[in-house]
């Protein structure tokens, strides 16, 4: 009796499946007059969520300002939450490409998500523009359909290492960063330049991305004159608080996400003095940055930061490419070529262009957190101009060594 009932249900569900599948989900559409579909892979759950939400704010502020029309074509914008992990990124990428048939993919947020989906996206030849680090995507395993307008994970940390050694005069540091690709590549970049300029990384600590309590790691910090971190999302808040609470007072150097301008309203006084290196800085004084900050304030009442700026700039690049293509995205090769040819002068991060591998060459700003008029803000103390992904090294020599990882560069014995 039981088995018969199950078979009937089986047949019913199969029939339902047939019915659903056979419906004409997709009618044929002509190219002209069809909106351009832009899919965003972002994170709205977990420690990276604060960055992900800002990514979405940055791009929607841009699109809204353009009335959702770029180069004369209407824009269909679809946002997907990957959950901040590679498996989720894979699933959502599949949905965007197979179900929603997007013309561009923006995002994902995290380097390890990008690494998980790059092969798949490349197979489908969908142009992808991310602010995720994942160095190798424009280095040793380049994805020809990928463009990065923010920085590789190590791109901002190379100048940070230089600054720490030459101007902060640090000699021995401990590094602490999340145990995933973005963390490894940031610290690797810092270590390479720092040690080439006379410094030494004594120990490297790797707490998991989701760590509630950093004490077991903070307890291991001693016998150094500085701490280097590259925490992402909202982890910098937790880390700096626990750092101060444990009585440590050594100078802290951070990456592009560690001192993110958008996080500053949430920091307490423990963040004062934090030095960070970022491709975006809130006090850059040009028209585009002023407009960008105003749009964010008007639409979302938030402080601008690296994540929002990254996506806003990507929006500008997509618009510039679409204008060069006269709105025609049917030829994927031409589209990616147009994207990589974009060269902008007035943007929230200043002027930039792309190198042959699709990675940005632009400014990196060194900032320090200070209290100005009762609230915390980043003050730019030095600008490194025209920093490409290999700076300060020669491309060939750089590509000859392996990608930065947990164990590369190795600790000097």
């Amino acid at each position, binding site marked *: 009796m039981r088995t018969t009932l199950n078979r009937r249900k089986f047949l019913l569900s199969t029939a339902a499946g047939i019915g659903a599948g056979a419906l004409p989900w997709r009618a044929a559409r002509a190219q002209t007059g069809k909106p351009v579909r832009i899919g965003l892979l972002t994170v709205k759950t977990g420690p990276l969520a604060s960055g992900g*939400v800002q990514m979405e704010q940055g791009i929607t502020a841009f699109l809204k300002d353009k009335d959702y029309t770029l180069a004369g074509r209407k824009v269909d914008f679809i946002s997907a939450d990957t959950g901040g992990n590679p498996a989720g990124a894979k699933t959502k990428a599949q949905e965007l490409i197979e179900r929603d048939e997007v013309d561009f993919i923006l995002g994902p947020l995290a380097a390890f998500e990008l690494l998980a989906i790059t092969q798949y996206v490349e197979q489908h030849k969908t142009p992808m523009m991310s602010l995720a680090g994942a160095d190798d995507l424009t280095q040793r395993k380049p994805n020809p359909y990928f463009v990065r307008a923010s920085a590789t994970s190590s791109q901002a940390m190379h100048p940070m290492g230089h600054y720490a050694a030459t101007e902060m005069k640090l000699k021995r540091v401990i590094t602490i960063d999340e145990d995933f690709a973005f963390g490894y590549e940031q610290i690797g970049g810092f270590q390479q330049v720092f040690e080439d300029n006379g410094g030494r990384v004594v120990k490297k600590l790797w707490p998991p991305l989701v760590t509630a309590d950093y004490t077991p790691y903070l307890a291991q910090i001693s016998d150094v004159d500085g701490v280097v971190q590259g925490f992402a999302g909202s982890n910098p808040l*937790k880390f700096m608080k626990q750092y101060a609470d444990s009585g440590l007072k050594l100078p802290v150097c951070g990456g592009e996400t560690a001192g993110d301008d958008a996080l500053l309203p949430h920091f307490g006084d423990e963040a004062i003095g934090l030095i960070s290196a970022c491709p975006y800085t809130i006090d850059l004084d040009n028209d585009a940055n002023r407009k960008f900050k105003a749009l964010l304030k008007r639409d979302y009442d938030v402080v601008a930061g690296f994540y929002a700026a990254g996506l806003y700039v990507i929006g500008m690049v997509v618009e510039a490419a679409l204008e060069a293509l006269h709105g025609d995205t049917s030829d994927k090769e031409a589209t990616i070529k147009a994207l990589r040819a974009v060269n902008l002068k007035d943007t929230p991060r200043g002027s930039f262009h792309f190198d042959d591998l699709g990675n940005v060459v632009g400014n990196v700003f060194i900032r320090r957190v200070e209290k100005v008029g009762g609230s915390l803000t980043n003050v730019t103390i030095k600008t490194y101009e025209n920093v490409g992904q290999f700076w300060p090294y020669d491309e060939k020599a750089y590509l000859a060594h392996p990608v930065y990882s947990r164990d590369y560069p190795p600790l000097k014995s």
Partner: protein
Amino acid sequence: MNFWLVLAINSVTLGGLLFLLSAGFSLIFGLMRIPNLTHGSLFMLGAYFGASLVLWFHVEFWLAAVISGVLVAAIGAGIERLLLRRLAGAELAQVLVTLGLSFMVADLCLMEWTGDPISVPTPPGLSGAAHFARLAFPAYRLAIIAVAVVVAVALWLLLERTRLGAMIRAGVDDPQMARVVGIRVSHLFTTIFALGAGLAGFAGMIGSPILSVYPGLDQDMLPLALVVVILGGTGSLLGSLVGSFIVGFLFNFGQALLPDLAYFVLFLPMVLVLALRPQGLFGRYAP
């Protein structure tokens, strides 16, 4: 030297927090024979309630902690009366329902508070480091140890010195006989479930300045509570206390000394205890 001391004190703090979380679980498991897989979610719910009270309603920290505990206790009582009681006797069904509920609570929290972790400020006066003998240690973590001790003593008094406590102990030892003797076991169940839930909610709020409140907090804390209760023994307060500190130490030192095997170090003892001495260190019976 400093490294060991800092880790040791941190282990004791985590142990204190885990005791608050797992004491309730142990009582529920001991009395009602239900491993309440919703317990982690109740912890997280208490943390979210507390965070909202402190950040948006500007309620004083400790008062918010008590209110969160009470709110979660009420929810716990509701769960027990409406769902678990219908399934009385069907242990497996009860386990599965609590599992399903944990999914629901987690998603409801995500809907209400979004996915961004919430940082709860340490109560003023306890933030920053306390200094003694050249050592700095976060003051708030020491406060948690104190709270855990107070709650432990209060629970002990409840169990050993009150009538309710006697009824609970009777119910844990032999539920059938307890009914025969006239104890209203079903009322007892609701009370205990509410008490356990309330403790978990309170613990969630107390722990939030350290752990912060984020989606996935429930899945991080539940396995720890399970290990505590299995190690210490179900239905035993002393077992929960000892188990909490053991787990606190295993977790902290594991993360620092053997990061690759941190979870292995934590769960292996649980497996061994279940396989070799299922009643745990101080438990009355095997699960």
